[in-house]
């Protein structure tokens, strides 16, 4: 029975990409320029023809023999495959299997030894690297501690001059007693005049003070 699916489902689409799409479609007539063109027939000499006939015949005979040989070989192989379930073949197969297993184990052992060596070397390398890393880290830590202690010392020395609630009044009094003027001015030449009073304005002030006095 042929199922209906065979007709309904197409395993391959009917429209296939044509290999020679660049050629003239079959239904077009011969081109005008090619109507009276007669293609030249190849000329094969009698001698050549006979030689070709001879070698072609030889070739066909040999090919027939080769084909028959492979066909017979295929048949033979088929028959041996069918008779492969005999006891002899089973024993041979078991022996072969055992040999394969032995060989495989030997190879595995070799590979395992190699792996062990490699792992040892890798472990030593890792240890070395870790030790070196730790040393570097220790040194860095030491340096940081040293730096910090230095800073602490400096700050302690400075802390003697700090203003605390105890000596706050003294500091205020001292500041009031010694006012510091940070103002200054510069002229076009970049000369610096410290204080709020410039030399140019000094006479005026003097005048004013004088007048007021």
């Amino acid at each position, binding site marked *: 029975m042929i199922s209906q699916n065979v007709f309904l489902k197409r*395993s*391959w689409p009917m429209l*296939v*990409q044509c*290999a020679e799409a660049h050629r003239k479609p079959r239904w077009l007539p011969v081109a005008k320029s090619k109507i009276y063109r007669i293609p030249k027939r190849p000329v094969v000499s009698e001698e*050549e023809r006979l030689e*070709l006939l001879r*070698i*072609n015949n*030889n*070739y066909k005979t*040999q*090919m027939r023999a*080769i*084909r028959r040989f*492979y*066909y017979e*070989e*295929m048949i033979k*192989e088929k028959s041996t495959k069918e008779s492969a379930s005999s006891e002899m073949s089973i024993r041979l197969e078991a022996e072969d299997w055992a040999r394969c297993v032995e060989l495989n184990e030997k190879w595995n052992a070799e590979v395992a030894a190699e792996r062990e060596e490699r792992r040892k070397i890798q472990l030593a390398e890792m240890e070395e690297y870790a030790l070196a890393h730790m040393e570097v880290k220790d040194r860095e830590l030491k340096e940081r501690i040293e730096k910090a202690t230095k800073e602490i010392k400096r700050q302690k020395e400075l802390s003697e001059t700090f203003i605390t609630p105890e000596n706050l009044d003294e500091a205020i009094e001292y500041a009031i007693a010694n006012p510091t003027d940070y103002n200054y001015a510069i002229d076009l030449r970049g000369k610096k005049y410290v204080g709020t009073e410039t030399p140019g304005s000094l006479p005026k002030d003097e005048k004013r003070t004088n007048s007021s006095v």
Partner: protein
Amino acid sequence: MLPPASGTGKFYAKAAKSIRLIRQGCTNRPFFHISVTHRKRLNSQPVIEQLGSYDPMPNVHNEKLVALNLERIKYWLGKGAHVSPPVAELFGLAGFFPIHPRSYMNAWRNRKTTQENIAKQMEEEKAKETANL
């Protein structure tokens, strides 16, 4: 969509097969798979199995490379697959088949043309010499 290169085509056991070249290269760069397909199938359809490859453009060592899976070729020949002439030529040059008649024919024709060319050149040189004298 191009069909896959090898081993995806459906096939029927009793249908005629052929071992042939299937062009896989792109424009101006031919490259062939040696595949086994149904004899009536187009080259653009999936093949049953790929048996080798053939690169007709000489490489840097001036070699045209051919790869053959001889075991499978033997298998398919045992199954009665036909062999297309170009593939038969390749097999002949590979020593798997006897040399194809077409190879012999091309060889002797090429030999003849080269000999003729050489003779023509010699004649021309002789003519030049006589003219000079």
